[in-house]
């Protein structure tokens, strides 16, 4: 059943041989020709690995993403109505699987934990022979899996990850991100903040005290200061705190008139309603209405925050109520399958799976360097975000960024966010060198 492999060098040097000999018979399957790569599915199954949090704090977003992946596999294999396969342009997929063969999948639970995420990804690669791993709800998970996959020579398509680091400082040749990032949030939201709240504002930042929070704080601070806003204070709050009262009371008389919450997920679900309860939005400061801004949020967070989210401005990667063809096709397919509209977490996962499959189809091989080259610089449209490009220098997708506002009068329980505008792809494009990092080699490792 099991095939035992080891590194060639190990055996040549002979050191580990004594230990190894105790174990079991070996089948030495290594050649040096270029097309030999990890989990080559030419003679086996085509397996995608979907690794998302199914337990822990972000289980809901993870499970939504998982549903979308399952839908994507159906569509790639030609089941169902095809969803975005009908709208993606250009498209190489034919609705008969990938390179004419059906795709299968395995799943895993990252528990929103970097170690568990890597354990899951290793299982998919080592045991289940996955040719591609995808899925994440936090940047920690995404970066952990991405660096692992680089080492194993398996392509990783990240799910929801918003930190600049994923395609910046910690970018990898084998990692690709469709989701937008904190820098783009800052650039995208700034003109709308100026329009809604003016250019003469004093902002107070509450920031989750970890890497993602810092990158977002920095991005938003730079963007708002460029508008002419003044930053009164930037205060760090412990992750997963629950009760933010001790950080909210100092805001009241700080002289600030805007509170920016650089919180994500459960942090935001708690801090935003608490800020509203403290009467921040009923106050006047510097002769203006006090405002709260949450630079990045999702519909699941909006649902969790309840009424407090009404009227709050933030950015989103995608929203099901958009009226382009791709969005309509995906929302319809997902809604029919699961009885509710998809979240942006589901959308980004679905798109990533389709894009990978399409890249393989275009490359005509599963050989990772060729697939990577097919993805790098790929221009496409019809996936719900307008014309999009996978930039080759950092593997970040560039597309429109949505600016959304909490819906004041929701018509249904799913109708929590309104899209109030889009910032164009040109505006959110930046120079890849500003975040440093290096992609690493194309050549796959032997896993």
């Amino acid at each position, binding site marked *: 059943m099991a095939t035992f492999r*080891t590194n060639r060098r190990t055996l040549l040097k002979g050191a580990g041989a004594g230990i190894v000999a105790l174990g079991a018979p070996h089948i030495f399957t290594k050649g040096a020709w270029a097309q030999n790569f990890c989990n080559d599915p030419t003679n086996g199954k085509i397996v995608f690995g979907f690794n998302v949090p*199914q337990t822990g704090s972000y289980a809901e977003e993870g499970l939504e993403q998982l549903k979308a992946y399952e839908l994507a596999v159906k569509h790639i294999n030609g089941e169902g109505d095809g969803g975005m396969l009908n709208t993606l342009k250009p498209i190489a997929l034919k609705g008969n699987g990938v390179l004419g063969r059906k795709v299968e999948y395995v799943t895993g639970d990252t528990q929103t934990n970097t170690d568990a995420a890597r354990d899951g990804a290793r299982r998919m690669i080592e045991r289940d022979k996955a040719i591609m791993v995808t899925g994440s709800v936090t940047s920690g998970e995404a970066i952990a899996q991405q660096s692992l996959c680089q080492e194993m020579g398996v392509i990783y398509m990240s799910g929801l990850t918003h930190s600049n680091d994923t395609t910046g400082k910690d970018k990898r040749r084998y990692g690709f991100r469709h989701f937008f990032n904190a820098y783009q949030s800052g650039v995208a939201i700034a003109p709308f903040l100026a329009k809604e709240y003016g250019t003469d504002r004093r902002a107070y930042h509450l920031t989750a005290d970890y890497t993602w929070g810092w990158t977002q704080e920095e991005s938003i601070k730079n963007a708002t200061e460029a508008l002419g806003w003044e930053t009164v204070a930037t205060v760090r709050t412990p992750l997963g705190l629950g009760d933010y009262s001790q950080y909210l009371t100092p805001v009241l008389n700080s002289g600030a008139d805007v509170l920016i919450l650089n919180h994500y997920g459960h942090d935001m679900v708690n801090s935003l309603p608490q800020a509203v309860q403290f009467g921040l939005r009923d106050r006047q400061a510097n002769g203006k209405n006090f405002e709260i801004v949450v630079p990045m949020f999702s519909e699941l967070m909006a649902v969790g925050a309840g009424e407090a989210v009404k009227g709050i401005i933030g950015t989103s990667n995608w929203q099901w109520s958009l009226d382009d063809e791709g969005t309509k096709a995906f929302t319809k397919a997902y809604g029919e399958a699961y009885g509710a509209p998809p979240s942006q977490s589901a959308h980004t996962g679905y798109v990533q799976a389709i894009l990978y499959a399409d890249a393989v189809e275009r490359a005509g091989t599963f050989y990772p360097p060729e697939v990577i080259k097919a993805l790098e610089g790929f221009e496409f449209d019809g996936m719900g975000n307008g014309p999009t490009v996978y930039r080759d220098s950092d593997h970040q997708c560039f597309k429109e960024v949505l600016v959304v506002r909490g819906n004041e009068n929701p018509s249904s329980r799913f109708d929590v966010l309104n899209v109030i505008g889009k910032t164009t792809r040109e505006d959110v494009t930046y120079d890849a060198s500003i975040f440093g990092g290096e992609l690493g080699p194309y050549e796959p490792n032997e*896993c």
Partner: protein
Amino acid sequence: MFSLSRKDLVALAVFSVVVLTMPIWLAPLGASYPGLMQKFAIYAIFAIGFNILFGLTGYLSFGHAAFLGVGSYTTVWAFKLLSMDVLPAMVFAVIVSGVFALVIGYFSLRRTGIYFSILTLAFAQMSYSLAYSVLTPITNGETGLLLARNDPRYLDAIFGAQADVAGLPQPTLIGNSVSGYTGFYLCAVILILAFYLSQKIFASPFGMALRGIKSNQTRMNYTGFNTRPYTLAAFVISGMFAGLAGALLSITDPLAGAERMKWTESGNVVLMTILGGVGTLFGPVIGAWLIKYFENIFSAINTNMLNNAFSFLPDGVQGFVVTVLSKFVGEGWQLTLGLMFVLIVVFLPGGLVEGFHRFMARLRRRKEAPERVSSTQPAE
């Protein structure tokens, strides 16, 4: 000095065979791949070390994950600054986590019982929170400490051993890569050594003294026996085991994240030890394997796989069976784990090993003379 009693020798031999043949007997269980087997070995080391403290002295540390984390961070830093060879990294990790344990143990061991537990918990939680936030320059916070191609690696530079590869350097053992199965066998050999060491400690006068402390510390003190150095030594040894486990985590997979220090991870090793059997040699190992197995294998079963597995059933029945079972696997794997905890502790008091002994004793009693009472039967 290296001698063992006959019983212990047999146990060690059996244990070695079981560990080294893991790739074979785990295959039908769907767990025979290097990633998980490495974790089996590493967490078994962690639990064995924890058991030296908890099983022998009765001191329940709720902050052992801190040493695991310190070991991991030290190892990655050794890779970054010194050399990609695993030996210096392991040595440093054990030393640093030992020093860390010495400091925490020195303070925590001033108290006993629950007060001790909360002190260790508090130290570990402080380490976790700081590692996640303000210590990010050292720990790289949320993302975890990763290797980079342009790390200095002074030792390698001196010896001219800088691997000239295009990608990231890989940890090596005297020039041999330790990924995949090699990594597993490395961990397995260290696990066997750790098991041997714990046998020696259990059988030594030191171990007897620790047991004496467990049964009645006050009496030990009254007999003029200073217990502090003994408990502190046990604490430091067990912290070094944890540091070693942390080092192996980073060696087999060069990334160190702050989550390794969180209380849930400390709680995990407590659960592993209790589940298998506190104070027994095999117990913690079995507990560790069981929990890691559920975490990695049960969580990976999805409805699709269930549907395939039960496709021989008629449609309606299949749907029903799959719906019921899907609550216990995939996203519901923790439900199964929780139920298992409750059932084991209710029906097998003393953990799995104790339960096994009782079961065997009952079998033996039925076979042999009915009045014979097994020596493993604990007094209640």
